[in-house]
């Protein structure tokens, strides 16, 4: 639990309620969760703060994608673990994610799988 409290998670989703439940789930798990509704805000947050992991919805406001946010974050921290949360990913998107070492979780997400994936990625990155 102590480790987790120190882990800072940035979660981005354009659906307010979904974003809220993600934040609460993460907080309930003991993470330091920061939530952002837009890519624009997320990128601004990434410039200001350091995060241990980035969870990002694929389709965001104004045709922006989660990859934009992930790429922006990776420019500062190339090894930052990133998870793409999506209801639908085109084969090209899935290929792209795989090539760029981005985990993909398809909505509706099994919560156990969701938490497990985050924990695993954080642990791998720490190791």
């Amino acid at each position, binding site marked *: 639990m102590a480790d987790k409290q120190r882990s800072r998670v940035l979660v981005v989703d354009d*659906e307010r*309620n*979904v974003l*809220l*439940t*993600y934040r*609460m*789930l993460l907080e*309930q798990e003991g993470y330091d969760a920061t939530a952002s509704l837009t890519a624009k805000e997320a990128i601004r947050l990434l410039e200001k703060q350091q995060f241990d992991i980035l969870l990002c919805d694929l389709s965001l406001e104004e045709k922006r994608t989660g990859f934009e946010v992930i790429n922006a974050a990776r420019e500062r921290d190339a090894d930052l673990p990133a998870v793409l949360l999506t*209801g*639908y*990913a*085109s*084969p090209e998107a899935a290929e792209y994610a795989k090539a760029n070492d981005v985990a993909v979780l*398809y*909505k*509706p*997400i099994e*919560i156990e799988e969701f938490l497990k994936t985050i924990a695993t990625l954080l642990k791998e990155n720490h190791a």
Partner: protein
Amino acid sequence: MTAGEGQSAVAMKKESLSPAPARSRAAGMEKVERRSSFARQPSLRLLLAERSEEVLPILLDEIVRMGYPRAFIASSNFESGQIAVSAEVNCPANYIKRFSTFLWSGDDPLVGVLHKGEPAVLPHAALNRRALYAHPLIFRNRTRCWEAERSRQSDCLAVLNDRSVRRMALQEQTCTACEMRGYAYVVGVDLPKTTTERQLNELRSIIELSNRYLSRLFKVEHYYNRMRDMDVVIAQMETVLASMADPVILTDPQHRVITQNKAAERFFSIPDNASEGAQRALELNNLLFSAALSSMAMSGTDSSRDLTLVDAKEGEEVLFEAVTAPTYSREGLRTGLVTVMRDVTDLRKADQEVRQNLEKLMQAEEIVRQDRDRMSLVIEAVGDPIIVADNAGKPVQFDSLAAQLFGKIGEDVRDQGRVRNLVKLSAYLTAFTFAFGQTEEGKLKLYHPPSDTHVEFNTRSGKILDARGQVSHTVTVLRDLSALRKVEELRVQARMLEMEKFAATGRLAGTIAHEVNNPMEAIKNSIHLLQNRVKPGAEPVYEILKSETDRVARIVRQMLGLYRSSSQVGGFDINRVVEDTLALFGRQLERAGVTTALDLGKIPPVVGSADQFRQILSNLVVNAKDAMAQLDAPNPIPNGESSVSDKKLRLYLRTRHLSGSATGRVVVTIADTGSGIPQNIRDSMFEPFVSSKGEKGTGLGLWIVRGITQSHGGKIRVRSQEGRGTVFQIYLPVVRS
């Protein structure tokens, strides 16, 4: 034929009377006197003559007895016209010669007497320049002959001669009524100078009497001769009748048989020794004949009837045509019927055969006509241009499509396009007609007037041979290849449209699922957050909330799959998709303890959506895995032995190309050794939301499998046995892209 001459006094031999006239006279007298006591009276003595030739000798004898020195009879021959002395008493030969003359020697006094028909005294005509009494004897009678009487004719020769008014010329002395030839004699008597008028009258009357008597005898003899002639005719007729092969029957007005010939007797005359059957048959024949006669008599004049009679001897039926003609008497009275029967059995048989043959011919013609109509219908229905040509390669029949290309048969084709087409066709037909092969296939590029384009046609030709094996006609069918290609294209388009429709449906479902997905996510997360925070007693409600939400989440996920598989349609490699899918599920299957076997055949590329096909395979593989997982579940049998633990869990995938039809089909087989499909859902397993997996299943998997398969023009075959396994086979048509 007149019998007159034969026995007439004209032919009487001079010799019989001339030698020793005195003696002969005495002998003749004796003979006559012995016959009768009338002899003393000269007139009565004449009655002793029983034949015409006896009359004139008696007359001459009587004249001499009356005291005249000599007398003669000159007779005329109507045929030759000669007049000559045929009988005489006491006449010297040179004296007789004087009286030889001709009927047409008009200035001869003797001939004049004959022509006038009146007796005359010719001075100095007799011997020693004495006067000669000449008396003509011509056939005459006061009453008509019987024939003339019966036929009510008034111009009987005898009567005409009797009336001095209308006497017939000597050359024409033949009775028109009885056809009797008359006679003409002249009796010549030398008159002594002392002859008195009274003596002359006596002489005249005895000669007249003789002539009357002669006429009568002549008449009788004529009838006798006629009777004899008739006998001959009758005998001849009977011979004719007897020799006729056809039955001839003469019947009286009461239909009684007067006479019949041998051929008729065979059918109508009942012999004494006839058997009972023959007798009955002959009686029946008679009855039938009488009936036929009655009916024919009723119908009036000549008529005919068909009559079937039994030949009693042969026991056969013979068909006759009976023709009757009534017979009439001279007076026009009906005296009976003559019936001639002709055996027409063979004739009728032949007639019947001809009729039957005609009927057969007509039937055959009808069949040929029907065949021709049917053929025409077939030709019109084929929908390809058809050309029938004769053995010289000249077209004799076009169907309507061929007429579009070449013009109508017999029509003068003017336009360039059709003329060129005809030239090409003619060259093709000639080459084929004289080639060895019975059939030929080729190509003809022809101008197609309706579309104003040139079209390449496939030609298929065949030969029609006559009975001798010679080519009588050729038939050529043209097939528009471009039309065929167009059909193929249309089929592909229709398939694409189907796929597109399914994809669109999928996109719609996916879009809805996508929209539902986010609220779903929020709800699900919220439920998770409420875990361990529900008030005591509310846990069951919380559990329902959680499980039902999970179920909705699964449905949404499945529907999102449809959204994902709406990718493009094109040619793809089925084997690669199978391999990819198996690789994707490889680890899951391995964990479940399933061994997989892959058997990939040589498959041509298939047109369709690779993604959609991947969806089919994924769904079926997941189903197979789940079915086997159900078997592998902890066994509830009390003694702890698992009934399935030793059963091998196997998944088998196979692809094959079936080259049955034009391009064939591809069949993909997915077989498992799982729990099988429960009986109760077999009928409905392809319906949406039907599942055997309980809460874990969405009931959409097989529905999607079916939808995609059908949209690809394919078919699904399922065999399953509960507890043993299931085999799915997906048949997809191979479409050339």
